[in-house]
């Protein structure tokens, strides 16, 4: 039996009578990066938020890092979330805190590390995402790409077993998108986010960072497999979606 980091079984989720996910099944093995691709409004972010336990499914089961998260209440989910890192599409940095304080936040909250050790870790994390001399800047003073990198540094602060990326290259110019792609690739090979789930509509990004690609169509996973197999699939719906992406 494969040791899965994420197992989703028969997931249904709707909002205000509109069904987004319709009995979705998906499995992410440990030490793999899975990209979930789908059009705008297809439910990619909903899927990621279900994995993080930020929202509850209407039906189905969510098992993450060996824990059945479906019946857990908010407080019971907190220890599980500390084992995950979540990179938000808009970075979701705490706007009243500096870059340093944002990255230090999870360390100060969940560890008893002395401040010297916190500072050392924060600087290493910021260096890892290619940021220097921005410690005392507020999020409002950063560019979109820099915010995303700070968001990644914050998500990696507690050395999570699983990292969830929500559209990491969305809204970035090509240079910044390439930078984030190289960063996610680097984190995968150098350790730091060996197991990752990414939702994206960026085909180039998905091809570069993924061991597996899943295509989400009509609330279900239409196909999942290695990038080459998915990208050259002759399935009509998958092919149509990918062709649409390219156009």
């Amino acid at each position, binding site marked *: 039996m494969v040791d899965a980091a994420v197992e989703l079984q028969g997931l249904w989720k709707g909002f205000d009578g509109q069904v987004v996910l319709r009995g979705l099944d998906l499995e992410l093995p440990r030490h793999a990066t899975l990209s979930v691709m789908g059009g705008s409004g297809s439910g990619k972010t909903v899927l990621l938020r279900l994995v993080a336990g930020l929202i509850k499914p209407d039906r189905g089961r969510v098992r993450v890092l060996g824990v059945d998260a479906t019946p857990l209440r*908010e407080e019971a989910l907190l220890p599980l979330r500390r084992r995950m890192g979540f990179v938000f599409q808009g970075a979701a940095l705490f706007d009243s805190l500096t870059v340093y304080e944002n990255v230090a936040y*999870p360390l100060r909250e969940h560890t008893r590390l002395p401040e010297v050790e916190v500072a050392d870790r924060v600087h290493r994390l910021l260096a890892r995402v290619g940021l220097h001399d921005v410690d005392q800047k507020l999020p409002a003073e950063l560019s979109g790409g820099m915010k995303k990198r700070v968001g990644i540094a914050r998500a990696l602060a*507690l050395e999570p077993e699983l990292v969830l990326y929500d559209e990491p290259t969305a809204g970035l110019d090509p240079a910044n998108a390439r930078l984030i792609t190289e960063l996610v690739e680097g984190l995968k090979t150098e350790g730091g986010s060996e197991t990752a789930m990414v939702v994206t509509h960026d085909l180039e990004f998905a091809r570069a960072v993924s061991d597996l690609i899943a295509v989400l169509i009509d609330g279900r996973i239409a196909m999942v497999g290695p990038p080459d197999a998915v990208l050259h699939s002759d399935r009509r719906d998958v092919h149509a979606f990918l062709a649409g992406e390219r156009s």
Partner: protein
Amino acid sequence: MTDVRSLIEPRARRVAAYWGGLGLLAWDVGRNAWLPRRYLPFVLAEFDGMGIRSLVVASTAAMFTGMVFALQSAVYLSRFGADLYVGPLVGLSVLRELGPVLTAILVGGKVASGITAELGSMKVTEQIDALRALGVNYVKRLIVPRILAALFVFPLLTVLADFIGLVGGMLIAVYERKIDLYLYWNTIFYWVVIRDLVTGVGKSFFFGVVVTLIGAYNGLAMTGGTEGLGRATTATVVQVSLAVIVVDFFLTKLFLLL
């Protein structure tokens, strides 16, 4: 019949959802009331935000309320030759009702709308979800410190407002109605008992909690982006004022029974 039902049902659902949500938040606050020591600075920061920055509002309102009440009561009491009772009348009114209620409405509106705006903008920018994703209990981090601060700040501001209200009454009684200064205070100490002060201050604990809960819930439950945030903030001011007045009635009944 169907039209009436279709008109009433969605509103009834909204009202039920609102009160249910508010009740659930109160329950969550109760379950998470115990804070770790590292959260103490957050409570102290709220003391500043809620208390120190509300001193001018609370004091000004109390001063002029005491003065107006003394003016009005002196006019009518003089018709019965009872001018000397201006002090006790001002004292009882300010200590039992005006001090706690006006403080709760004015300071509460200001504090609660600030909480709604802050939590609402955190929600819009996914900062609350970011806290949750980092494994942080957002009720403990964002709401409980405010409730704990309110439990201290509202009674303290009420005591201050009570005192300033009495001083305001004194200014009118002594300088405008020419009532003796010692008579003013002596009649207050004779007719107003400690229970009157305790009743008013006791109410302020409840007002503090209700006001903070409404502000926090409206911020967390807001929808509709920045436009929704504006609506939620306005709704908070109205709901806080109404809630204080309604809760005051039931608390008055309760304290009269005790």
